[in-house]
């Protein structure tokens, strides 16, 4: 079950990341105006072209698991912010602010700025 944010957080950052740096496709399919917060466990961190992915297992209120497919920047863009394929691993617990798919399916867009470990620590300290 998703938790909806009552306030848009760091919307400028998410929109900025959806602009020039990521040009494989438009990110308008993700709802930047209605971002949501997710907490879950990393099933997989795909450090691939043309986009990286965080596959996040989110426990619903009824105890069920929803698997979220979260698309991010290219590796060549992330590396400029200090990320690598080893920045996340299966089992990491994250708290994320994402722009969800407009369709309502469990997918969305993630950004480094909107991603932290569950204890609040940054995943990567940007250079």
């Amino acid at each position: 079950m998703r938790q909806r944010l009552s306030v848009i957080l760091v919307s400028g950052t998410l929109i900025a990341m959806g602009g020039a740096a990521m040009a494989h496709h438009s990110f308008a399919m993700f709802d930047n105006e209605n971002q949501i917060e997710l907490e879950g466990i990393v099933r997989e961190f795909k450090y691939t072209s043309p986009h990286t992915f965080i596959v996040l297992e989110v426990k619903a209120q009824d105890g069920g698991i929803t698997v979220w497919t979260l698309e991010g920047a290219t590796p060549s863009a992330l590396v400029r912010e200090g990320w690598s394929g080893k920045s996340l691993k299966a089992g990491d617990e994250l708290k994320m602010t994402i722009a969800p798919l407009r369709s309502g399916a469990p997918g969305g867009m993630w950004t480094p700025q909107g991603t932290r470990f569950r204890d609040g620590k940054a995943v990567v300290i940007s250079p």
Partner: protein
Amino acid sequence: MIYRGSIWSVALAAALLAMPSAAQVVDFGKYPDLKGQWVRPPGSPNNWLRLAGPAPLKPEYQKIWEEIQADLKAGGPGNWPSTFCIPAGMPAMMSFYDPAEIIVTPETTYILISHNDDSYRRIYTDGRDWPAEPVPTFAGYSIGKWIDEDGDGKFDVLEVETRFLKLPRSYDISGVPFHSDGQAIIKERIYLDKADRNMLYDEITVIDNALTRPYSKKQTATRNPDPRPVWHSDHCSENNPHIRIGNEPYFLSADGKLMPSKKNQAPPDLSYFKQTQK
């Protein structure tokens, strides 16, 4: 006493000097230093709408663009073919989404671009004419000419014209459309900043029948100071979750299932699959 051997040696040397040399000496000093890795300065834009203003579209194509924007708002891909791994082509290739390398030879300037399948351009500077039977490509066919603007014996500007551009294409993710006749021409002036030789400009002008007038932007790139920069390789089909079935876009989930991109989107037509009885 003159030995016969000496006579033959002198004759051979004279003959060799008279022959045209297969290895020509090229004066690369007359070309600007374009070596290295060119990247977009951090935070600087490359979007056409931001750099060039609204596209001067004819009414018919303005309507098409409004439909494209509506599709984007609904969760669709708009008009940006690289969503589905079709090369972005020109002019988008020169937006420095990712680093590029420029290699100058007297006959051809090559631009290698590490983006969306490591694309490249050839700009022919050997004085050739346009091909009689052109085959359109996404990068187009580019003919260039080096210009010595200040008359100091060194080239300052590479003027380029590109034709025979294959559709589909757009300028960038905004989806501004090109005319369906595929007759667009792109002109460029590529040059270094006179005060800062590590700053590159590409003045790009599109002449297209969808436009009421030429549409231009000035793209900036800066040279990476690292003499041995890292070149990332980008392959669109490696893990692209964006699928098009018919005219509908879908999103492939991490567990390999199709998800809708748009609200209330219907699933794809499965009529070729055998329907099993349960």
